[in-house]
């Protein structure tokens, strides 16, 4: 795997965001340095939701058109989305420990997010368990669509249920609830992690194409 132009830009953007977070973003007066975990946690969650959204769209299109390209995109996006879900499920507790005093609480948002992780981990296990390509694509398309139904519930869960988790600071109808320096860092991190997702998705898709070609020649 060679580093493509997109890969170079994506990695550079993420490095630039890390530098901006460390050296050029002010410290929160109440939480101290731990608040800077936001710039990892929130964009990772956004990318995970974007990835699972794409899984749902491509899976639904697969069930309609039966084009194996759509199945490969769904499988690739699900795997990359699972990595980003692992990221926000790891950074969340690391942020919660010093601020809430506990790593975890079984409230709606956290529990549903963990449930989302298990659904897409199951999706990958399911794909590995079925040899027939058409059956594998069809079954996983159904699971991929079902899993993504959770995404809007997770986003809205902080409004619907009592929770320790804070409300969105950026992805909401009103203006961002942060000072401009912090908002700029947060927006940059959303852009950088989205670029990282697009690059990883493209590389993972290539891997899926190579895998299918190998499978074809072995038949």
């Amino acid at each position, binding site marked *: *795997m060679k580093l493509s132009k997109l890969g170079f830009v994506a990695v550079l953007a*993420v490095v630039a965001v*890390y530098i901006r*977070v460390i050296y050029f973003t002010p*410290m*929160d*007066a*109440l*939480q*101290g*340095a*731990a*608040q*800077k*975990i936001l710039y*990892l*946690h929130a964009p990772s969650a956004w990318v995970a939701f974007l990835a699972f959204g794409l899984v749902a769209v491509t899976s639904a299109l697969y069930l309609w058109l039966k084009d194996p390209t759509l199945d490969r995109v769904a499988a690739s996006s699900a795997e*990359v989305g699972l*990595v980003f879900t*692992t*990221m926000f499920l*790891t*950074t969340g507790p*690391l*942020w919660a*420990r*010093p*601020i809430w005093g506990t790593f975890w609480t079984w409230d709606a948002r956290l529990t549903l997010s963990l449930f989302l992780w298990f659904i897409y981990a199951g999706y990958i296990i399911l794909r590995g368990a079925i040899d027939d390509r058409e059956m594998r694509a069809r079954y996983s398309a159904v699971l991929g669509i079902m899993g993504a139904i959770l995404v809007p519930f997770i986003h809205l869960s902080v409004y619907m249920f009592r929770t320790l988790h804070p409300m969105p600071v950026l992805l909401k109808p009103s203006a961002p609830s942060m000072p401009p320096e912090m908002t700029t860092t947060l927006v940059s991190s959303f852009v950088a992690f989205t670029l*990282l997702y697009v690059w*990883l998705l493209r*590389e*993972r898709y*290539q*891997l899926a194409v*190579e895998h299918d070609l190998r499978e074809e020649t072995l038949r």
Partner: protein
Amino acid sequence: MTVPDTAYWYHLAYGVSVVLYGGYIASIWWRRR
């Protein structure tokens, strides 16, 4: 008012992110080599 010292958790989270994302990039590279 003093700002709480939570730098340990911040460093840990960023360290974990480098390992996780770096590890995933390495895994794609390994599978495609």
